């Protein structure tokens, strides 16, 4: 069991594994997005209240989901990296941050584009979800800035990990405090949370969420490969990989 685990977690193995799976996951994700788009944009009927504007849900909800998933991955990897001093875990955390940040931005942008026709405003201060996403974006940016500000990579990894863990505690408190605050200022939003979605609308959404997650995984693996290489730059397998046969090299670049 332990031997298997160690082999799995060995950098060259992870490098190869990630390189193998990334293109497959990307392909699956693209097929899934295609199916989801067909279902969401063409097959699903317009919402009786929101008309066709509700279709933004098919990119908004998966993005919001990935923004949280990215942070959870980052935080869990940080805990593992700090406790077991595992370089690979730090590499995962560092790889997840920019992807999570990009989807947090996307969740905010699409939420804003959805809010304008529905609420009449690009930005609704009293919506707790928008505020939480915004704070989440700041936390991502803080993590990335801190990591790039520290010269030494090991130090940067571990300092970033502490920040990511502090951020988890914080994001929970921020969420509840903003919810409490917005409840003082106005009644909840247009969205009726209890409304049941018909299957023709829900199925494409689920497909999109799964496909977005696969896409996240593909990019995470691609970035993980770079991070593994950087952390293992003095290892013999990296030297062999970089200087060795040119064919495997160009293949590696394409996968990323």
């Amino acid at each position, binding site marked *: 069991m332990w031997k298997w685990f160690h082999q799995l977690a060995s950098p060259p193995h992870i490098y190869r594994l990630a390189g193998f799976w990334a293109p497959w996951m990307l392909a699956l994700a693209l097929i899934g997005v295609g199916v989801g788009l067909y279902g969401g944009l063409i097959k699903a009927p317009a919402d009786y209240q929101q008309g066709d504007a509700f279709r933004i849900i098919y990119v908004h909800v998966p993005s919001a989901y990935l923004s949280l998933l990215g942070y959870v991955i980052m935080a869990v990897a940080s805990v593992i990296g*700090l406790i077991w001093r595992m370089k690979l875990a730090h590499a995962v955390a560092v790889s997840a941050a920019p992807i999570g940040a990009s989807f947090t931005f996307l969740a905010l942008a699409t939420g804003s584009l959805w809010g304008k026709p529905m609420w009449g405003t690009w930005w609704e201060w009293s919506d707790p979800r928008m*505020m939480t996403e915004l*704070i989440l974006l*700041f*936390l991502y*940016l*803080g993590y990335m*800035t*801190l990591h790039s*500000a*520290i010269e*030494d990579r*090991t*130090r940067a990894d*571990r*300092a970033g990990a*502490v*920040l990511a*863990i*502090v*951020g988890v*505690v*914080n994001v929970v*408190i*921020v969420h509840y*405090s*903003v919810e*409490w*605050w917005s409840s*003082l200022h106005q009644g909840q939003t247009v969205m009726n949370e209890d409304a049941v979605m018909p299957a023709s609308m829900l199925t494409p959404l689920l497909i999109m969420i799964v496909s977005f997650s696969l896409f996240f995984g593909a990019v995470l693996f691609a970035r993980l490969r770079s991070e593994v290489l950087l952390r293992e730059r003095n290892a013999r397998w990296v030297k062999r990989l970089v200087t060795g046969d040119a064919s495997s090299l160009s293949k590696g670049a394409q996968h990323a």
Partner: protein
Amino acid sequence: MGSDPTDDQHSVVIRAVELRPLTVFAVMLGREWRLALRRLTDAINPLFFFAVVATLFPLAISPQRAVLQTIGPGVVWVAALLAALLPLNALFSQDHGDGTLEQYVLAGQSLVALCIAKTVALWLVAGLPLVLVSALIAQSYAMPVEAMPTLALSLSLGSYTLCALGAVAAALTVGVQRASALIALLVLPMMVPVIIFGTRAVVLASGGEPAAGPLYLLAATATLAAVLTPLAIAAALRISLE
């Protein structure tokens, strides 16, 4: 350190006298306090900053009494938070520069107690004076006198949370060049709950309503920060010296 001295004649066994955490705390607090007294200008600058920022808002918005009363709690709170950010950059940088920080970590004493002392000292030097000045500024914003105790209490609690989180950010950025902007970027998003609860308490108290609810929440966040952040500060300091 704990190895058997007989296996190597030349090894020097250092046995540090391990002080009780409370003693570490007291010694550190005394040291920080004396240092702060020698650098009084450093402690006074944020107060000036606070006053100047608060002066700009009536000029920028309106000197009308009703407007001032509306924006007063928010302005006092935001300006106080910004002013409390100023001394964070220097919290560990000098100790780092002259090697003291290394000695702290290697001393074999309770690093957590030391970090609590650092935070408390920061709060005494940078947090509490802001509370005193805030009373003055609140007066100029026509805040009712009955709201003053709530303002003072909420700012005391809120500034402790800021000092605690700020110490984490300062510890994480030890050795980073020009870290002030980075510290602000790390700390300010985390202050969202504090500013919500704090201003809410002051707004309620200004309207003559009971402000206990938000004050309790503020106390809860301060307690949480006081308990958890010393661990993060200690971890960050250890990392910075690896």
